[in-house]
């Protein structure tokens, strides 16, 4: 399966990334794109900017592990993940997940799985800048719960 993982400070082109997964192929019947965008508020307080720190080397490796896990779980025909780092302002793109499959159910599920794991396992940290100073964003227990629901609790095959 073609898989693209990029970490970059530059913006990305969602349409171009989705098109490049499909180009020249006729087996793909569903492409799902998810774009995470920098919001203008965090916990009800206006945000001036957000700085995304990451662990170079591990971030790529960790995302690749989750792409491999998604590929083992759903019949994917392609996946692209782009995560930005550095300083972003409200309205800026943060992350792109594109999944391609023959049918939409697999593409939707894999995209949600990848996003849930990116939130809780990929080594990125957000610091928000507000009028009264800057602070690191606390991890949300709802994000942990979202990732945990993908844990396969079925008994192992006999």
């Amino acid at each position, binding site marked *: 399966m073609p898989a693209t993982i990029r970490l970059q400070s530059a913006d990305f082109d969602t349409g171009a990334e989705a098109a490049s997964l499909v180009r020249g192929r006729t087996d793909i019947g569903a492409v799902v794109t998810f774009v995470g965008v920098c919001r203008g508020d965090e916990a009800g307080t206006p945000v001036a900017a957000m700085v995304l720190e990451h662990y170079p080397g591990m971030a790529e490796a960790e995302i690749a592990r989750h792409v491999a896990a998604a590929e083992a779980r759903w019949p994917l025909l392609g996946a692209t993940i782009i995560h930005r780092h550095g300083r972003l302002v409200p309205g800026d793109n943060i992350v792109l997940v594109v999944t391609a499959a023959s049918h939409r159910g697999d593409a939707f599920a894999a995209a949600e799985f990848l996003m849930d794991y*990116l939130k809780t396992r990929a*080594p990125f940290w957000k610091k928000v800048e507000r009028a009264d100073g800057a602070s*690191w964003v606390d991890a949300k227990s709802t994000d942990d719960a979202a990732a945990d629901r993908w844990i396969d609790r079925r008994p192992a095959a006999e």
Partner: protein
Amino acid sequence: MTVKLLYFAWLRERIGKGEEVVEPPAGVTTVADLMGWLAGRGEEYAFAFENPVVIRAAIDRAHVRASAPVAGAKEVAFFPPMTGG
């Protein structure tokens, strides 16, 4: 044992540097031991590691638990819970 340490987000800010090379004593065998030893290296380290339960760790770029052995590790990273995506 010589090992490279990396710190991210508020751990990096509290310690005042993003990386360093250290030589922990022989009694340091796990990630938890390493955090305990680091906490004793000065005020900034004590502040950074004051609540080790919330700190996550990776050995050679893969997540590990605090009970993981550090023998053979080339790079150990410490960071708060992740907030990407």
